[in-house]
């Protein structure tokens, strides 16, 4: 490496400085020339997309349980309680072992995608998915209803309510005596 030369040097020699400058310019131009032919890093976004990493925190989804033919969510509101910005509200459907939700609304205008609701959920019901294109021209587009969130959409929500109501009805039928007993016990 040559000694650092600056314009303030007392023994400044313009010719040496000039040749030095030309050499460094040439070195720099070699670098930019190589760059000219290197593959470009641009991703032409609307036409091309980067792969989304598996733990990406995008739009939420409610997990569909194929085996039980219902959503995993039981409407316990732990996620709503964990949420610092009060994004989540839900309507519980039934109670006991077969409880679920009929309505699950998230206002993502307030959401900061902190993942706390996902961590709070003990039933593996709510997750964050790979969809990050949530911008819209409508103001109410930040409001996501259960059909927008559930895996499988409207169909899944319908089946979910069907299954839970069927199970609740079966439970009701199977234990009339118990129910009376329980009711009596409660009133005591």
């Amino acid at each position, binding site marked *: 490496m040559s000694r650092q030369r600056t*314009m303030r040097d007392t023994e400044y020699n*313009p*010719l040496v400085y*000039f040749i030095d400058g030309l050499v*460094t*310019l040439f070195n*720099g*131009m070699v*670098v*930019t*020339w190589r*760059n*000219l032919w*290197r*593959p*470009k*890093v*641009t991703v*032409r976004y609307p036409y091309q997309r980067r792969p989304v990493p598996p733990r990406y925190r995008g739009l939420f989804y409610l997990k569909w349980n194929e085996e039980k033919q219902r959503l995993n969510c039981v409407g316990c509101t732990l996620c709503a309680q964990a949420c610092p910005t009060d994004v989540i509200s839900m309507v519980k459907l039934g109670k006991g072992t077969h409880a679920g939700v009929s309505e699950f609304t998230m206002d993502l205008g307030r959401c900061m995608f902190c993942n706390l609701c996902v961590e709070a959920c003990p039933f593996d019901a709510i997750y964050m998915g790979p969809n990050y294109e949530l911008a819209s021209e409508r103001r109410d587009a930040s409001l996501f209803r259960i059909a927008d969130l559930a895996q499988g959409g409207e169909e899944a929500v319908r089946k979910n309510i069907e299954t839970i109501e069927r199970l609740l009805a079966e439970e009701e039928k199977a234990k009339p005596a118990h129910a009376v007993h329980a009711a009596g016990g409660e009133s005591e």
Partner: protein
Amino acid sequence: MIEAITQFFKQYPLLWTFVKAVVLASFTLVIPLAVIYVERKIAGFIQSRLGPLHVGPQGAFQTAADALKLLLKEDIVPEGADKRFFYLAPYIAFISTVLCFMVLPFAPGWVALEMNVAVLFIIGVSLFNVVSILMAGWSSNNKYSLLGGLRAVAQLLSYEIPMVLSVLAVVFYTGSLSLTGIIEYQVKHGWNIWHPPIMIAALIYFICALAEINRTPFDLPEAESELVSGFNTEYSGMRFAFFFASEFANNFFITAFAAALFFGGWDGPVLPPIVWTFLKVFVMIFVFMWVRWTPPRLRIDQILRFAWQLLVPISLANLLFAIALGVR
């Protein structure tokens, strides 16, 4: 076909002059579109980007779209501006560029005005650009514009001297002040660039040309990090477009001038002369842009010291060298 058209117009000298003026003015307006597109593409490629891509094939119409946008934008005049000069400055810049193109031969016979002192004329007229920059900077009523304008004047005047001296070396060497004469000399005797004094002159010309068109190592007049955007800070819309167009047309012109002086102008085998002119010009424009996107910019005192302490003495010595070798 072209012959027939020129023959027709030559019967009416006034009309012919008017046609040439219109063609030149529109050429000066259109060529920046191409040069800016090339510049943005090269800038993108050097920075591992793709550059403009979506308007037209490979983004070719992007600059045209930008120009259209600038024409439609609001024209803002700052309060306290010296309105007359503020209005006038961009057009003076543009006119100086058009005047330069006027005497530039693109191919044998393809010159708007055959002038036997074309080199002198170009040197004189291109300095109008400095006037327009000073006018813009002064009349904007903005300290950044003023500083940019003053810097531009200091820089352009300093670099004009070694540039003129190196051009003078060519003039002495070829014994002609007419651009057509210089090119014809090169057609006969080989390109000037192969002769030692002219080689040095070409190097000095190249450096000075970078400074004249405010390209990066010397782009102090519009140093963004210090001066917002220099003398054209307060300009918007149409007027800004004119400054921009004249800057890039100047870029084209200064390389075309270099091609005529050092690289034989339209001279070249196989291809028609006009193609050779444009080929040489665009190769040189590429080199200019390549340099532009490589080094960082210098400080104003470094720039002026470089011009006065180094370029002026070297170009003077080189001029003597050229005279000694060239005079017959």
